[in-house]
């Protein structure tokens, strides 16, 4: 009764219990947009199998203290891992890519048929307002594609608060604790979404074949992600110069040349 086959049988049964049964969720139709640099960005849904490709790009951000990157990255890592290992219900993950390179990861969940829960927006390329595009794609997914009636949102950083709560005049849903830390939620209702449709539904479909193929071929490492300072005590001494004041380096280069 305790041979290998019986143990295997038990393992499969346990997994059936531990693994949630996801609702059928229509897939996110990929779209593309021209960003400020003139490059084309593709936003598409990431499949479970692609999660291990994304995780190594999220992990280093857990050590970047500024702009709340550390907490957002830590939570995103957990949420993506949970999605991959089938330990979370009804989650979706969208990725934004330029030339295959990962620029942003956004995720969220369906709480009920009608209510969505926005989880995170993590931008890995800065200076091009990619976060704005990624957030908008999420809202479009909940409202237009999943056909929901409202999305619950919270912000970890003041920038997020200004960009979402104030900008879209979100309704307070303070009686509903958000999954992210149990803090009071704000809501983007269908009505607010329609008012802001011009800002929240941007980009073009369908994505040209070649562009989509490049994006789907693989998720490439971000070329210029936020990085932690080399010396965690850099605030107390300027002996190290992790910001790269280039003059120091070029001087050393010059001196070496003279010595040769």
């Amino acid at each position, binding site marked *: 009764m305790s041979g290998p086959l019986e143990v295997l049988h038990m393992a499969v049964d346990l997994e059936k219990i531990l693994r949630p049964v996801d609702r059928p969720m229509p897939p996110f139709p990929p779209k593309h947009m021209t960003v400020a640099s003139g490059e084309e960005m593709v936003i598409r849904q990431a499949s479970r199998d692609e999660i291990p490709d994304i995780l190594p790009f999220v992990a280093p951000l857990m050590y970047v203290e500024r702009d709340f990157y550390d907490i957002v990255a830590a939570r995103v890592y957990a949420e993506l891992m949970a999605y991959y290992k089938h330990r979370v219900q009804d989650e979706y993950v969208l990725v934004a890519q330029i030339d295959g390179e990962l620029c942003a990861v956004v995720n969220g969940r369906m709480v009920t048929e009608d209510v969505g829960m926005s989880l995170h927006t993590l931008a890995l390329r800065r200076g091009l307002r990619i976060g704005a595009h990624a957030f908008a794609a999420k809202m479009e997914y909940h409202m237009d594609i999943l056909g929901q009636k409202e999305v619950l949102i919270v912000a970890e950083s003041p920038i997020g608060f200004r960009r979402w709560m*104030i*900008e*879209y*005049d979100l309704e307070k849903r303070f009686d509903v604790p958000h999954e992210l830390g149990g803090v009071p939620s704000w809501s983007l209702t269908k009505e607010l979404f329609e008012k802001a449709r011009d800002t929240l539904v941007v980009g073009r479909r369908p994505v040209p074949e070649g562009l989509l193929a490049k994006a789907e071929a693989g998720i490439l490492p971000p070329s210029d992600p936020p990085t932690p300072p080399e010396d965690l005590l850099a605030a107390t001494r300027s002996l190290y110069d992790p910001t790269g004041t280039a003059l120091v380096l070029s001087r050393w280069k010059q001196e070496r040349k003279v010595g040769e």
Partner: protein
Amino acid sequence: MGREIYAYRCRKCGQLHYPYRMVCRSCGDNEHNEFDPVPLPKDGTLLTFTQLHNLPSDFEVPRLKLGIVELDGGVRITGQLDVDEPRIGMRVRGEVEVVRRVNYDRRYGMVFREA
């Protein structure tokens, strides 16, 4: 309704100033309190305007319309606009209302509406 915003007329030469300055810009010949407060007219023409999206943290609205108005009589003033579609040259009428809350204080200023 009540509140006024005051310009200051130099007692020596009659030059109007808004806002207050200590020495008359025209004759330079007055003591600092030799000005008569004169309530500003409320009607004027909109000279220029903007809609500001990145507001200071104590504002809870996402956007704010601001403008410079040339009041009848020639004095110019900066104010908030409660106008759907501002146009350069449009006639406006102002009311003195709460324009900003700083901590628990209320600051009053001119809010212009289409005349």
